[in-house]
């Protein structure tokens, strides 16, 4: 084939096609791997623009930050309970016999460049991760996004939350400082409290009696390999299902059960979400740089004979600790066995019930409402008063347990008796959910009849005429909306572009399911 194209700059550029070198590379890739079809699906994935859909991203990107900072930490952390003599830069520990795990964590904080920043970012990120999962889950629950066909993704999300809590606890235990060692001690007691087989399981997990020399290495491999591995797989499945089943959306103009209205992945959502990733990373870095978290050098190494008062777990374990604190001291001793109900019930049965109820909820709701339809349009919480009230009730219950884990801090701060706080928590944990249900139900019912509720608010523009008359006019809903300016993007030529229907709200695209 003869080359009759002149060798000029413009001609060379033209030969590459409208998308230049990148397009050329993609073209070559498509010839070999067939990435165009998947790429088209990926780039055309429609994301609803509502802000509440961003909550899950906080969790996702916190997870990314956790992975990145976590890899850094593994480079300096030594998962060993062998005793060494600490000789480092932190003088109050000088000459103390500590475990290698503790010594390496202190050294990582003081002797490694950016080590303390990474440690603190990892810890803050973890707190944000679990908090964001819960907020995201609340969004999914209250808007009914878990309904058919998305029950499986609800379960995957719940499993991710469980694993996040477990892995948070495992990671918190790794420095082997006084506070985290106390946490492991409590975990050991909880394992022992499993009726009949608790002792065996405890000895199997710890390789003997507490504390032993094996629990830190075992927690380490669980924390950095096994649990995160499962979590990455589940996050992948979570996102795959999200793409496969497409997003839910709030009802609105032009939105039906059969379509999705929103911004496509490329370029709108990609720009937005990348920016959000940087914001999340930035805020985590700021917290890591300026707010001290878990100063293990002040706590000292763990020794079974030592204890500090005012020890709370991290926020994701707080509801369990709260339940343990306020549960009455009941136990069963007979037939040569002891079943410590004061541990078994709050630490094993209660979380089992809470999570079991969460797993069962989509099924339960289908059973009660006899609603077997597919749902892609979301509910507004006020339109489902019973579900909203149940959710608020559960939220209040967990929140009271959360606060119950700081009974001593509350008592000290307000200078009231510890017992009074304890009893108040016992009463509150029962009363609050019971009161929260009818109140929420009533509020939802009342709001349903409020005219204009759920409609987007518009600005009243007041103008003064030349005669001095004031005229108030209601502005259009989408005045000054940034999405107006976005032009439709050109689709690469190797993708067979199907013309998309423009939605009635400008700038967004509608895709059939």
């Amino acid at each position, binding site marked *: 084939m003869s080359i009759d194209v002149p060798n000029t700059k413009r001609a060379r550029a033209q030969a590459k096609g409208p998308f230049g070198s990148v397009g050329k590379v993609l073209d070559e890739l498509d010839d070999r791997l067939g990435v165009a079809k998947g790429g088209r699906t990926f780039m055309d994935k429609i994301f609803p*623009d*509502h*802000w*509440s*859909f*961003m*909550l899950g991203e*906080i969790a996702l990107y916190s997870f990314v930050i956790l992975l990145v900072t976590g890899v850094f930490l593994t480079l300096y952390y030594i998962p060993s309970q062998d005793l060494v003599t600490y000789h480092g830069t932190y*003088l*109050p*520990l*000088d*000459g*103390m016999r500590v475990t290698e795990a503790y010594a390496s964590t202190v050294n990582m904080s003081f002797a490694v460049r950016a080590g*303390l920043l990474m440690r*603190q970012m990892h810890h*803050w990120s973890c*707190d*944000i991760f679990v*908090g*964001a999962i819960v907020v995201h889950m609340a969004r999914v629950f209250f808007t009914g996004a878990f309904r058919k066909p998305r029950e499986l993704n609800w379960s995957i999300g719940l499993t991710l939350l469980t694993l996040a809590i477990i892995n948070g606890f495992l990671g918190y235990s790794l420095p082997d400082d*006084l506070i985290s060692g106390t946490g492991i001690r409590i975990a050991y007691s909880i394992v022992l409290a499993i009726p009949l087989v608790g002792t065996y399981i405890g000895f199997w997990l710890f390789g003997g009696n507490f504390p032993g020399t094996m629990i830190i290495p075992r927690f380490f491999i669980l924390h950095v390999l096994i649990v995160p591995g499962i979590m990455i797989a589940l996050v992948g499945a979570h996102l795959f299902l999200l793409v496969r089943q497409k997003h839910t959306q709030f009802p*609105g103009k032009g939105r039906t059960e059969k379509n999705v209205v929103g911004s496509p992945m490329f370029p709108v959502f990609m720009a937005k979400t990348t920016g*959000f990733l940087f*914001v999340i990373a930035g*805020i985590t870095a700021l*917290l890591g*740089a*300026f*707010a*001290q978290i*878990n*100063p293990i050098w*002040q706590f000292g190494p763990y020794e079974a*004979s*030592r*204890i*500090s*008062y*005012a*020890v*709370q777990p991290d*926020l994701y374990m*707080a509801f369990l600790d709260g339940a343990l604190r306020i549960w*009455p001291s009941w136990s069963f001793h007979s037939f040569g066995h002891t079943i410590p109900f*004061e541990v078994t019930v709050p630490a094993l049965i209660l979380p089992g019930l809470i999570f079991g109820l969460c797993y069962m909820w989509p099924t339960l709701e289908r059973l009660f409402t006899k609603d077997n339809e597919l749902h892609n349009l979301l509910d507004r919480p006020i339109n489902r008063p019973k579900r909203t009230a149940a959710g608020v009730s559960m939220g209040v219950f967990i929140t009271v347990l959360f606060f119950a884990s700081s009974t*001593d801090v509350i*008592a*000290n701060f307000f200078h009231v*008796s*510890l*017992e009074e706080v304890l009893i108040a928590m016992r*009463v509150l944990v*029962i*009363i609050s959910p*019971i009161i929260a*249900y*009818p109140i929420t*139900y009533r509020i939802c019912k009342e709001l349903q009849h409020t005219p204009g509720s759920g409609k*987007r608010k518009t600005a009243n523009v007041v103008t003064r005429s030349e005669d001095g008359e004031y005229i108030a006019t209601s502005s259009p809903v989408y005045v000054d909306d940034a999405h107006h300016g976005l032009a439709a993007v050109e689709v690469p030529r190797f993708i067979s572009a199907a013309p998309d229907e423009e939605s009635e709200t400008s700038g967004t695209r509608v895709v059939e399911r």
Partner: protein
Amino acid sequence: MTSFFKRVIVYSTLLLLSLGPVALFTGNANASGQKPYQTPYQTTRKNAGTPNSSIVKKDKNGMVITYGNSAILYKAPPSALDAIGEALFMQNCASCHGTKANGVPANGVSGAYPNLVGLGPATIDFWIDSGRMPATNPRAVEAPRRFARLTPSQALAVSAWVNSLDPSLPDIPTPNLTNANVADGAALFALNCAACHTIEGDGDALANSTFAPSLRDIPAYQVVEAIRTGPGNMPRFTGNLSDYQVRDIVKYVTTEIQHPNNPGGLGLGGLGPVAEGFVALLLGVGLLALIGFWVGERE
């Protein structure tokens, strides 16, 4: 009002009535026949903190003037202050502790107030100097630390007069922190003090309306006085901690506890995961959700 709403109210009231008393009375120490804590202040045994020191200086009557070692020097309050101390005692203390400092007030009601005779000058000095005495509420379970009503020299004078009634120990300590080992202090603090005062020294609420006070603003000699005399609920550490060990603890408290380095940034009040949780939820999740609210549609 719908019938459903009525049903919810009726059922929740019933549930509440049935569960409320259970929650109130289970697992409470008071319910199991134990008497609640009654005595306002624990008194200390006479001659607590017997000198285990190398240098004991006595006057010609055999009375101890100073004792101690290179770590802590204990000094009896000068007897010249007795007269001033007596006057101050009559003004500020006698209404409860009685004119003889024996815990029997003038109206004859006895038993409620501690007998101060033979407690040693360090005890008297600590209670007055830390502002706990004169108490705001003499019947309260605990006298909290507050601004001292008497000056340090007045406190010394009162302790001089009370000591003159029955000279006893421990005397008023002056720690010398020059050769103190802060690492030993940290280890001893974790072993002996952290169980109540918390590992970061912030103090916390204990059982039966008592509190372990914060150690953030305590002068060195008061730390020694507290360790050696055991005020309130606190155990009296005498035989198990040498003067050298006490000095190490004092060094750790006055440096690392009171002026922590906080290389990680803001200390967040030393409240640990409680404060951290609030920061993570409000500044982390909350702020990020707000930014998401800003980025996304608000339809």
